[in-house]
């Protein structure tokens, strides 16, 4: 029975999420975007559908734990993503995004399940060779509120055609107040090719990190 519950939880996790730490948090109109973010202290899995070029609706499941694995929290939410503004420049693109979730949270630092809201904002600027992003999101529930703030800088090795894989080097600074009060720094290698995007690296403590996006 316990195994069945774990399996069900795992599949719920596989059905979730909008991530806050990638390039655009949604795809193009009428497209699905599948996203995942995995490390020892944070795991997120998500799926959303863009109904317009500006709006996407999806579900998200995420789990956080402290470095020593003592405190744990899981979130399951419906997420709305809205492109608030875009600037299309000859060689670049800049965006402001709203990401907001409504759902529930459970954890071992409190009993039962609590209603949760998770408003957030992301700003980004990118060219074909340079990428920058900053985001902030609050996971707020009665007596169990935490924040995730992220900043990223990336540069690609070379400019690529649409049908060629493009490798990047990305450095991320992320602070998850549930996990630690300090920022963690994670250098990663990113490859973007047509429909997929993968990132792999390790933070300065040696904890591995893997992210992916698939747009279809």
């Amino acid at each position: 029975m316990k195994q069945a519950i774990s399996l069900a939880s795992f599949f719920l996790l596989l059905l979730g999420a909008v991530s806050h730490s990638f390039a655009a948090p949604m795809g193009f109109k009428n497209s699905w975007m599948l996203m995942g973010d995995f490390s020892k202290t944070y795991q997120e899995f998500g799926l959303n559908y863009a109904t317009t070029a500006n709006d996407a609706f999806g579900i998200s499941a995420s789990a956080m734990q402290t470095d020593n694995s003592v405190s744990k929290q899981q979130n399951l939410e419906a997420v709305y993503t809205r492109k608030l503004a875009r600037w299309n420049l000859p060689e670049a693109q800049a965006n402001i995004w709203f990401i907001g979730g409504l759902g529930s949270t459970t954890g071992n630092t409190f009993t039962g399940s609590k209603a949760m809201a998770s408003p957030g904002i992301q700003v980004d600027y990118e060219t074909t060779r340079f990428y920058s992003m900053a985001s902030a999101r609050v996971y707020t529930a009665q007596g169990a509120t935490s924040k995730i703030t992220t900043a990223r800088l990336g540069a690609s090795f070379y400019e690529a055609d649409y049908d060629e894989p493009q490798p990047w080097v990305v450095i991320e600074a992320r602070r998850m107040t549930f996990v630690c009060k300090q920022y963690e720094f994670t250098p990663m290698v990113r490859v973007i090719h047509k429909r997929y995007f993968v990132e792999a690296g390790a933070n300065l403590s040696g904890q591995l990190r893997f992210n992916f996006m698939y747009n279809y």
Partner: protein
Amino acid sequence: MKQLNIIIAIALMSLSQMALASAKVTVNGMVCSFCAQGIEKSISKMDETKAVFVDLKNKVVIVEAKEGKTLNEKLISQEIIDSGYDVVKIETIPQTVAQFRTQQKDKK
């Protein structure tokens, strides 16, 4: 002789129409393959489209028409705008998508 001239003129006009088969759209804001994918998908769905090529380096989209069809520049422009990008200009070029790609590769 007059009839022959008319036939040659019609043939030349047809040839020139066949040659002017593609639209070259200059687009602002197109920076990654995810952007390219959205534009490619939406324009490929249009009835008159034979082939689409998104040239990220030069920030242009090449749209080739099916034989006997005429590209609707307004619709192409609207699809790109609906995908979230800005159209700077649309011009007609004599190359097909394959020819344009070959030309770009030769430039490298």
